[in-house]
């Protein structure tokens, strides 16, 4: 934020100090948690763009690759806590997929620090704030401005 660039809307927002972050979240827990952060007027880093899905189980690993391909410097996946899934077991599918998919991402050359997985419930507006802030700081601290994310 301190290193704000002048210029058009389009060119802003994707260098080391201002990385684009895409969050894939479930509708019921994390999206509501993010809404709660809003109704509570909490403040957090504005680098994140949220894509809402019904369930974290709907988050296809290819979405994550696509997000990186389209310039995201960090990707967050977040759903309901284990046991709280609105669809009973979607978040378990998500968790298992994530565990396997991380290795694949590493194989593709992605720095695994760039992907984050979290459980945020509809009552955890404060957790949403801290996850976003910490993740954004972490991405910034990687201090890597290369254009190709798929290399180590």
């Amino acid at each position, binding site marked *: *934020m301190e290193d*704000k660039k002048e210029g058009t*809307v*389009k060119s*802003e*927002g*994707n260098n080391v100090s201002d990385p*684009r972050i*895409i969050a894939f979240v479930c509708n019921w827990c994390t*999206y*509501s948690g*993010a*809404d709660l*952060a*809003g*109704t509570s*007027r*909490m*403040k*957090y880093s*504005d680098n994140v*763009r*949220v*894509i*809402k*899905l*019904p*369930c974290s*189980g*709907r*988050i*296809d*690993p290819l*979405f994550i690759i*696509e*997000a990186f391909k*389209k*310039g*995201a410097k960090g990707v967050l996946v977040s759903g309901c806590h284990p046991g709280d899934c*609105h*669809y*009973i*077991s*979607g978040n378990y*599918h998500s968790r298992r*997929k994530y565990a396997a998919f991380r290795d694949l991402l590493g194989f593709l050359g992605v720095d695994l620090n760039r992907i984050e997985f979290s459980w945020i419930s509809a009552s955890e507006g404060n957790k949403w*704030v801290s996850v976003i802030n910490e993740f954004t700081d972490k991405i910034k601290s990687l201090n890597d401005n290369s254009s190709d994310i798929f290399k180590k």
Partner: protein
Amino acid sequence: MARIGVFVCWCGSNIAGTVDVAKVTEEAKKVPGVVTAVDYKYMCSDPGQNSLRNMIKEQKLTGVVLAACSPHMHENTFRKAAVKEGLNPYFVEIANIREQVSWVHEDKERATQKAVDLMKMMVEKVKRDRPIEDVRVPLNKKALVIGGGISGIQAALDIANGGVEVLLVEKEPSIGGRMIQLDETFPTLDCSSCIMTPKMVEVNQHPNIKLYTYSEVEDVSGYIGNFKVKIKKKARSVVEKDCTGCGDCWNACPMHKNVKSEFNMNLSERTAIYVPFPQAVPLVPVLDRSVCLHFKKGGKCVKCYEACGPKCIDFDIKDEIIEETVGAIVASTGYDLMDNSLYGEYGYGKYKDVVSGLQFERLLSASGPTEGVIKRPSDGTTPQTIVFIQCVGSRDPEKGVPYCSKVCCMYTAKHAKLFAHKVHGSQSYVFYIDIRATSKGYEEFVRGTMEQDGAVYLRGRVSRIYEDEGKLIVKGADTLSGNQVEIAADMVVLATGVIPKKGSDKVAQMLGISYDKYGFFTESHPKLRPAESSTAGIYLAGMAQGPRDIPESVVSGSAAASKILGLFSKNEYEVEGTIASVNEATCVACFYCQRVCGFSAISRKEIKDRSGKVIKVVASVNPGLCTGCGACVNACFSKSIDVKGFMDDQIYAEIKSLAI
């Protein structure tokens, strides 16, 4: 060609204070497909909605994006407005620029940038929206209640009184459940049979209730409105319609010493042909083939057959499977007590005079083995001193279960009170951890047991019980005085922890409802949907959900019934159309989707040619069961299944719109 309208809401200064709404509007106009973009102070107000409607009409819009508050707030409002102009409700998308932009960011320029991004994202999504029709499922207006305890009975009666046909299935020979085993009930001391039997009789006589006792639900398939159920009516060996319940058969049965009565908690014996208790409903005996001499000894013994006047005993009756279709189900399978033998130090099973709370109920009951006179199981003498131990197994994460069984504080106080009333000059001691007496009249009831009936309450645990010269020596701690205590008792009553009925996990699996790690059925929402299971059309009642007392069980039975009557007040059940659908042309029938589906919503579908020959098998989504979670979409290798409203191409377009 898409004709998209973008509406940017100021929400007074809530959005406009942090986001440059004019800039968002200008940026919207540049997005391909957007034919109009406007900003307005309050989009959700009547004039705001009218401007939306007018624009849909005038500009012939094919989709609209509202950059406004959270979709959880006003998505429905705007969908309804769009529908009035003939637009499919799912062509309305919301960019959340209040809760997730203006309220959480401070830098106006950057917040505006984010708002623009979210707006563009939703324009890309709405361009790819397809019309979605909500699904209507026809309802078979008949209900199944599994379990004939007080909560199941209450549910069945309420549904039946609402004019709907009910099937009530009970595993045991009689309905009544645990409550009919109880003596008097706290805190009013009204006798359980006196308030329960009229309800049981009402069930039996109700024209809308079909009662299946000594029966079990074997299989359930289908979905809300259309469950196919198989009920196994176990061979009773007695023709129900002819039986008069006279009792000649069980009086003639030679097996009267060897079989323990389940109803009396093994404190007495029963015959092979028996009714569990005199007020059983229906009053028709069951012949227990596992112990009957006719079946054990090759058909020799026919004493009951000979004794029977109406000749209604039939040794050849077989198990019968009854198939029914119902629209809704209540699962009220009840509870069991934990196994006391986990606590070897209390000597349950070793010393006859150490009994469980339910056994003590039977000793108190006028219809029990001692006809209501409290006698020691060992020698039949009247006990003068009884020690009651609470929280045996409950609130004990080490050996038992961590939860509180909820009813034990109250029934122990009742036991001590009734003991004082029945045996004058007697003394009871109660070991407790905490007293939990929180409903109406409960605290006063416990106080009464302490103050009027003289029960001595000792806060602490019992470490050991052993027998010495006909007495049970109870060693424990009184943590309030800091002393070790030793009591020579005539009897010990264990307030044993409550667990779900044996086999309730199987019932849950059969029904496709979720249950917790102890086996209690879990509610769809613990606070806001306490009567609903995780599966549409299946409702919960009674102790199967967790420990609760009689009034709560009755309330839960009524709650389940009212949900069902509400459901049945319409002819069709409406399901949101955002569910999965299969592309049958590309589906390769691998059924990975079926494996990940938590709702059993995917089945095999055969595609046949004109001559009826199967040419292809594909996956098929049952709209009554699908919830639209999308787990199947990721499992599909051939990309043949997708969730309406969250299609793959839409998500990729959203990601692409964020490209830098």
